[in-house]
């Protein structure tokens, strides 16, 4: 469970997040949507402290992680993240990408890490790409490797920052399918996305952000059928 309590984030003169409070429960899949520049990604990045909130608190399983004394690295071990632009390590093979962090961070042996990695790569359908370097993969394959890499740390929560936005249209589905499977396993997920159908179908809850404010949150079916705010109606009219 991860809880944000009145978090705000200011970059220079620009207030990107304004007093956002919400709780993401264990096993819940939450989609974060909203126009570009609304602060969705910043919100997500605050959850694993890639961005430090200017004010407010974040709790991971009731432990305050915005505390200065808390080791960010320990927090991040439990929170996986998938980026829009994959950020695979280009000088490592697919298998090394997936086994690196479990070995370095969790101290697993090479064979233990490889066992986990191979299971995960099989799960995302890339067993045959084990020894390939990332630049030999398509965007969809890269993103699936990135998901496997994050999962190899066996995190409690997975964060997805527009995981399909940089993909060619025909590769979106393979990534979303992997995410759907993951949601089916009961993984806690927070997904910043522009894939409204995916949000509608997979998410348990939708957060709608606009201009740094959490304007609406609720059940996806209700939200997409009948958004409460004018701003959300506008947005949905444009994207659907």
């Amino acid at each position, binding site marked *: 469970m991860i809880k944000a309590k009145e978090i705000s984030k200011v970059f220079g003169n620009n207030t990107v997040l304004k007093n956002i409070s919400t709780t993401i429960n264990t096993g819940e899949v939450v989609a974060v949507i909203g126009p570009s520049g609304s602060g969705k990604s910043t919100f997500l990045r605050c959850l694993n402290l890639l961005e430090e909130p200017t004010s407010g608190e974040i709790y991971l399983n009731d432990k305050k992680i915005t505390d200065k004394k808390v080791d960010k690295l320990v927090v991040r071990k439990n929170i996986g993240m998938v*980026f829009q632009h994959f950020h695979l390590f280009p000088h490592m093979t697919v298998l090394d990408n997936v086994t690196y962090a479990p070995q370095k961070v969790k101290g697993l042996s090479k064979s233990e890490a490889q066992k986990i990695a191979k299971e995960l790569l099989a799960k995302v359908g890339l067993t045959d790409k084990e020894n390939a370097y990332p630049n030999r993969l398509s965007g969809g394959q890269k993103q699936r490797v990135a998901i496997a890499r994050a999962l190899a740390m066996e995190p409690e929560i997975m964060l997805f920052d527009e995981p399909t936005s940089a993909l060619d249209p025909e590769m979106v589905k393979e990534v979303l399918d992997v995410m759907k499977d993951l949601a089916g396993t009961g993984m806690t997920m927070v997904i910043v996305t522009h894939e409204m159908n995916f949000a509608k179908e997979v998410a348990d809850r939708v957060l709608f952000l606009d201009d740094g404010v959490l304007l609406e949150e609720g059940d996806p079916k209700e939200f997409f059928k009948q958004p409460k705010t004018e701003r959300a109606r506008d947005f949905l009219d444009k994207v659907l």
Partner: protein
Amino acid sequence: MNLDFSQIVPYTPFMLKGIWATLEFVIFSIIIGLVLGTLLALCKITKVSFLKWIANAYTSIFRGTPLILQLMIIYYAIPQLTGYDIPIFLSAVLTFGLNSAAYVSEIIRAGIMAVDKGQMEAAEALGVPYRPMMLNIILPQAIKNILPALLNEFITLTKESAIVSTIGYLDLMRRAQIVGADIYRNFEPLLLAGAIYWIMVFILTKIGQAIERRLRQGD
């Protein structure tokens, strides 16, 4: 035209020993330059302004003054100020190592800056601590990009090493001068020395290209 290489034949072993004399301190200098240069580069990219200031000041001083002056200062000033009679070899290694570090730090800094910021974020998001992140993720990518620039620095260092002849270090250059003075013919020993420098740089270039090919296998 009265070139007569037969006269330097007896001196060839003496001159060839200069190859090792030069290589020996160039290798040490390169290692010092690389290690110190990397540390300085890391200081330059931290958020700790004190470290940044030190590293920038260091670079400014060592890039802003002539190498030969630095060599003289280390060789003559250290004994005068501290009473420690610094050996020629140590002066040479120190000067070239410290000087090279200034240049190497700029090259490596540029290399690190050129690595996609997302790489660092990806490593951070996985909980990878700073040291392994730098050593395993960032620096290997940086070094691949800066290898040509780094190789250039090593080549410059190898050639500029001839300056140590001015403090009497028996390197290749100095030996060529000694032979020249001995046989009253300068052109032949200098030409031989020149050829040897060229071969050393040629080999260095080939090694560099081989490393570059190896590092590029991921592309």
